[in-house]
């Protein structure tokens, strides 16, 4: 599957800004970059729904709204069910002649808490039923809205307020849940992993997700300066390092067939280009405790996990 749509940054700049400035995301907010990029991928009328989370809060502090498209938030764990309801209503209203548009896209946004954890049931149900919508997971790897608590998406040994870097337990003992693999296993037509550093890749994937008939799942890494403890200017740099170190490889699965996306494909073809995971970890305060004699061995352990997952992915992509 490929999208016909080709674009330049100028084309994007000339498309309307569907997320208005004046929203109250923190300076350097990764999710806000992800949202802006994704909303540049729209192909026509669209309705958005959002799970509870940072981006729900910062874009709609009453009486203000940053949304130039119809938008609804209802609760934390149910955004996929919102999308299901909207999509179904549109379908039947169109059939009954109550709708002026030929087609309206439906997009659901949720953070990692709303996806890996509390929203997984509704998401699984909605994609199993085959609703036609794009689900965007903006993964900032912890419950940032409530103050940086660990989620199923938090990586191994990251320090959060509920998995602090203690003297005995150095951050989150568990590993990041392979959420996108879980979505592929649902047999849905489109799943992709993207990083806002590779904007063209991310926007193209969002567009494919909208174009495909049936459920699409886009896993977008969304660095958070507050939660990851780095300088606000480094959001894109870190989003790029995640890909360069294979911590967050870019890929897509169309009807279950995996393929690597260009930035990761380059590394697969030229493994010497893969940067050590240390490069990714070192600028983030949430991993600072790993750079001590006591816990430094964990960096190797993380490198090992990253390698293992990368190899599995290469196998799926037929590049092992």
């Amino acid at each position: 599957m490929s999208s016909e749509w080709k674009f330049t940054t100028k084309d994007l700049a000339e498309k309307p800004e569907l997320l208005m400035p004046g929203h109250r995301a923190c300076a350097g907010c990764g999710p806000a970059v992800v949202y802006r990029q994704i909303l540049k991928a729209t192909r026509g009328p669209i309705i958005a729904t959002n799970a509870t989370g940072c981006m729900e809060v910062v874009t709609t502090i009453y009486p203000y709204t940053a949304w130039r498209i119809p938008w609804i938030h209802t609760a934390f764990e149910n955004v996929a069910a919102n999308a299901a309801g909207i999509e179904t209503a549109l379908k039947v209203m169109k059939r009954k002649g109550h709708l002026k548009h030929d087609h309206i896209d439906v997009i659901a946004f949720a953070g990692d808490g709303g996806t890996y954890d509390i929203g997984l049931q509704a998401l699984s149900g909605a994609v199993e039923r085959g609703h036609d919508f794009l689900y965007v997971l903006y993964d900032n790897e912890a419950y940032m809205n409530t103050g940086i608590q660990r989620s199923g998406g938090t990586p191994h040994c990251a320090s959060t307020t509920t998995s602090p870097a203690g003297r005995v337990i150095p951050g989150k003992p568990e590993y990041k849940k392979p959420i996108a693999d879980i979505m592929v296993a649902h047999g849905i037509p489109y799943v992709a992993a993207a990083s806002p550093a590779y904007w063209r890749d991310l926007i193209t994937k969002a567009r494919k997700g909208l174009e495909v008939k049936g459920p699409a799942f886009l896993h977008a890494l969304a660095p958070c300066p507050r939660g990851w403890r780095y300088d606000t200017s480094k959001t894109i740099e870190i989003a790029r390092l995640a890909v360069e170190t294979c911590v967050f490889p870019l890929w897509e699965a169309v009807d279950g067939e995996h393929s690597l996306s260009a930035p990761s494909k380059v590394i697969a073809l030229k493994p010497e280009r893969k940067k050590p995971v240390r490069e990714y970890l070192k600028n983030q305060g949430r991993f600072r405790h790993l750079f001590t004699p006591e816990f430094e061995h964990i960096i190797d352990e993380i490198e090992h996990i990253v390698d293992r997952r990368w190899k599995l992915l290469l196998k799926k992509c037929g590049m092992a």
Partner: protein
Amino acid sequence: MTSKQKGWKEIPIAGVCWTPTTEYLTGDWRTFKPVPDLQKCNKCLLCYVYCPDGAIEWKREAEKIEFNYNYCKGCGICANECRQEAIKMVRE
């Protein structure tokens, strides 16, 4: 609450929002201000694509970028990502 705020009869039902965020200026959050050097700028617009706030505008007629300091929070992503080093962060 202050009398300036609207009463229940005056606002839409169900919490439907009635003000765009463009009326909420986030520019005063800023400590450092991005200052572009338009001589160095090659108009790649990466700064536009990476801005979390939509605070960089592409002026099509004038063929140049323009910062909207009403909204720019001064995160510095644009300066960090500019391959031409055409954006400097300057303390306000």
